[in-house]
């Protein structure tokens, strides 16, 4: 099965899986009613996703071995 796909760098594949998993996790209905500092946890998760996703990708592409 995997042979049908072109190989992806392990760290890049993990970053991709993390992004998809974090996005799915953020949309779980439970986060709508819980609040921190007056705002639903869903909102904080979205804000975290907006910062974490590019930061993670920068870390993956900026590793010394990637130069």
């Amino acid at each position, binding site marked *: 099965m995997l*042979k*049908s*796909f*072109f*190989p*992806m760098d392990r760290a*890049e594949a993990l*970053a*991709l899986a993390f*992004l998809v998993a974090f*996005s799915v996790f953020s*949309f779980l*209905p439970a986060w*709508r009613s819980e*609040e921190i*500092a*007056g*705002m*639903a946890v*869903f*909102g904080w998760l*979205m*804000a975290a*996703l*907006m*910062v974490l*996703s*590019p*930061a*993670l*990708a*920068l870390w*993956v*592409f*900026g590793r010394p071995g*990637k*130069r």
Partner: protein
Amino acid sequence: MLLERVLVLLYFAGCIGIGIAASRRVRGSGDEYWVAGRRIGTLVNAMAIMATLASGGSIIGVMGLAYSQGIPATLALFAGAVVGFPLASLLVARELRNFGRYTITDFLAFRYPSSVVRTLVPILIVIAFTIYIVAQLKAAGITAETLLGIPFEQALTVATLVFVIYVSFGGMVAVTWTDVFQGFLMLVVVLGTGLWFLWEVGTPLELMRRATAVAPELGRVEHRPVASYLGYFAIWATAIPVIPHIVMRVFTARDARGARLSLNLAMLAYSALILAAVFLIVPVGKLEFPGLADADQVFLKVMESRFPPVIRGMAVAAVLAAVMSTTDALLLACSSAISHDLLGNILREKASQRTIDAVRVGTAWVIGLLALYWAYSPPELISQFYTAGVGLLSGSLFVPVIAGLWWKKANRIGGVLALVTGALTYVLVHFQILPVGMAPILVSLGASALAMAAGGLFGPPESREMIEAIEKLHAL
């Protein structure tokens, strides 16, 4: 309003000056005109990408939405685009930069050689982007009318002429330079305003506590179910890796690593812009102007009440910059869909370089003026249509591009089927001809993937030469 108008006129003059300066460099070269000679450095490209994504909606719209529907729902809409950029850098940036052509159509027509692909893709781009441009023009006209007191039609005409001039004559070089200027202006105004409020209050958490104590709806998810935002999130997350005006930025980078880094640096800046707007400016607006009938006025009201005319003038210029930095890239991508993707082969065979230059400039003018004509009396729901237009592109292009780069069994028949099925399904579900009770983007992506799988598994296997060519794109 005199000072504000003078500042905006100076800004317009600067944009035209950049266009004229760039026109000398791009004349006679497709590489210079469409992809700025592939020499754009990482930081410059990052700023240009940030400005390209940050449209009028990213300043006026985001704050209006947060004010009226709460911060969590607003962030759900904008987070999709932000996640799309890391996806683009992981899935397509290196490979498309190594491919080294001008447009997404170039790649798809190479990967799935077919007249259907060569014709349908640019037509979809022109349809979706013309709607997108009209929506942006409407925003520019309303902004100038509200803030500068200039009649809607006049404001629209002047703004359109300015960006058509610098795009048509200066190509990607002018678009990049003006976008950097425009992006810088946006960041200074929005982050500067946000930091000023932060200095006054202390911490964002304190500001949020104060605002949500008075207006608890600001922090709640109560206007629509979260599931309804999943569609918008998916549209933008899957559109960014394939949407032409962003993909063209990948082609302008010096190398694959530069392309990947610039996409993500751009998103850090964009996220800072959006988060400063919703966490620092909107709470102040909610505290000081709790009952605004038109929520989109919140940023302008805050600027008016707190800052002197010079800063207000910069704010007006920043909003117009946000609109123009997106519209110029859309116009260039739309122009490339016609003069490069559709007419390119004929022009290369039969026309002189001078004619090719004239066609490029002429195409940008025709599209710009048609969009202007339509924008004089735009449909009321144009803002919703443009998201649907982006959805149409995403639903039809995402699967063929990603499978073409990563799945060895992706073949010509699968690519054509995925493209046509994605586009058709999106239209049928969006207009409720096919009522399935799900977001059109989710249905069209699924249908497109099934069509690709059917073509790949049951159609003729892909040639060894094509597999090797794609392997090279990954390996470089």
